């Protein structure tokens, strides 16, 4: 059934008793052409693109819990393509373009809201860095505007302009950036992939790889039995090292916890996405009214999916430094996600040294915005055995070669990215 206002109205007449499942509850088949490990946004988008663009429909997505239970369902929903370095910039713009057509492509309203992403700067040095970045974006055909203090004040007058420790001097604005409803992205890809024949198998944990005499991966062992595969793609950011270890691989990745926060719902206050340039704080407001915000990672290796108090305080201090009108708004809920922190802050999408095993990992805290492009380029890699043209630099051997894509310039120190 195609989703539309008309199908909704028709369904209403019958009391909404006839909606089909959004995706089938598939039983695992003995073998698939491609098995994707990880039913998050990236895994589901990969399956969707394999079926939709590359005609590979005998595909299973294996999810150890419920789809979207990893970082797809724990992020702060920001989409943007305001990157700086070759390798990242074209890739994230590809993603932005896919966001722009996603709802029609998937027949699912993922609430892509191009409300603008505003990165504030507080010094000449930051302005210069944003000028470099904004110009790089423009050279790549991406929208970017450099705003001065007056223009920022006009756009977001409720910020702290008058007694700030680090006064706002201006901002870099990407109007096409914004937010999307994270769960809906998962469900939309699941829905669309399912309609193309992809099997989405929940509560199916991969416990090992099946390998032939030559070492090639030919399937996976799971909590629901052995499943054969022509190729296996890993899209399990947060757990990449653990899954890779089953194939005896060590990765240039550490797992860290990133906390995120939502306030009680309030009437519309923040029109766009704002990042504070002098502290660890960024914020947007959900359509439901909650302020969705976050800051820096906790800074230590963790698989606990929960964080500690210093970061909570640090983030709220940033919030109150930037916008002290939220002092009486209450923090409703905080949570933590496990980030695949790579050694240069950029992702890895590549074949692995193990035949038949493909890697999509290292998303740090930027994976959500990458979801559609990640799916597309990973599908391309799985289908063609060569990197998509917008993913040629996301190679696993770039660290060995010294070709890091280090936007923050922090080096091989994941907790600083």
């Amino acid at each position, binding site marked *: 059934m195609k989703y539309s206002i008309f199908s909704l109205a028709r369904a209403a007449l019958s009391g909404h008793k006839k909606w089909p499942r959004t995706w089938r509850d598939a039983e695992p088949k003995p073998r698939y052409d491609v098995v994707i490990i990880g039913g998050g946004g990236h895994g589901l988008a990969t399956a969707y693109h394999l079926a939709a663009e590359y005609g590979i429909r005998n595909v299973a997505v294996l999810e150890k819990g419920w789809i979207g239970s990893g970082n797809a369902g724990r992020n702060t929903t920001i989409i943007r393509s305001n990157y700086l370095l070759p390798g990242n910039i074209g890739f994230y713009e590809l993603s932005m373009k896919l966001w722009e057509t996603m709802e029609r492509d998937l027949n699912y309203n993922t609430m892509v809201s191009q409300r603008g992403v505003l990165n504030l700067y507080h010094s000449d040095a930051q302005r210069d860095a944003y000028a470099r970045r904004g110009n790089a974006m423009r050279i790549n055909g991406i929208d970017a505007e450099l705003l001065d203090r007056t223009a920022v004040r006009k756009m977001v007058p409720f910020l702290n302009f008058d007694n700030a420790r680090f006064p706002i001097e201006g901002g870099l604005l990407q109007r096409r950036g914004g937010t999307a409803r994270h769960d809906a992205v998962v469900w939309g890809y699941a829905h669309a992939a399912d309609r193309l024949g992809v099997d989405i198998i929940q509560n199916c944990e991969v416990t090992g790889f099946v390998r032939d005499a030559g070492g090639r991966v030919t399937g996976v062992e799971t909590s629901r039995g052995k499943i054969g595969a022509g190729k296996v793609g890993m899209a399990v950011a947060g757990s990449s090292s*653990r899954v890779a270890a089953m194939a005896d691989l060590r990765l240039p990745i550490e797992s860290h916890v990133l906390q995120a926060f939502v306030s009680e719902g309030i009437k519309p206050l923040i029109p766009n996405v704002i990042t504070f340039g002098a502290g660890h704080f960024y914020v947007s407001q959900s359509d439901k009214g909650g302020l969705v915000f976050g800051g820096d990672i906790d800074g230590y290796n963790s698989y606990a999916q929960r964080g*500690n108090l210093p970061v909570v305080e640090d983030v709220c201090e940033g919030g109150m430094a930037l916008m002290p009108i939220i002092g009486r708004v209450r923090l409703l809920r905080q949570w933590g996600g496990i980030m695949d922190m790579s050694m240069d802050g950029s992702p890895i999408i590549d074949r692995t040294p193990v035949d038949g095993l493909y890697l999509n990992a290292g998303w740090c805290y930027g994976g959500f915005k990458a979801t559609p492009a990640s799916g597309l380029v990973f599908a391309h890699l799985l289908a063609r055995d060569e990197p998509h043209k917008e993913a040629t630099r996301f190679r696993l051997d770039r660290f060995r070669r010294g070709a890091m894509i280090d936007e923050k310039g922090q080096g*091989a120190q994941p907790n600083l990215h």
Partner: protein
Amino acid sequence: MRIACPFCGPRENGEFSYLGDAKPKRPGPDAGEEAVYDYVYLRDNVAGEMEEFWYHGGGCRSWLKVRRNTVTHEIFSVEAAAGAGAAKAAS
């Protein structure tokens, strides 16, 4: 999180900064690029017990080796780095 500095006693984690896995050892001068690459970039990224380096920069400035579970955050032991204080290490 609280870490019991062997010199200062238990302190809140705001006093510490983190480096990461203490297992990789810096290769000697002639170990070659591959060994240094491994040291700098590759991690076991253990889900479970791990020895790691923390720096008590907000206190006594000692580097510490902390054995901690990365899943539960439980800390099992904290010891000073080999060269903390005036400790004389074999060269």
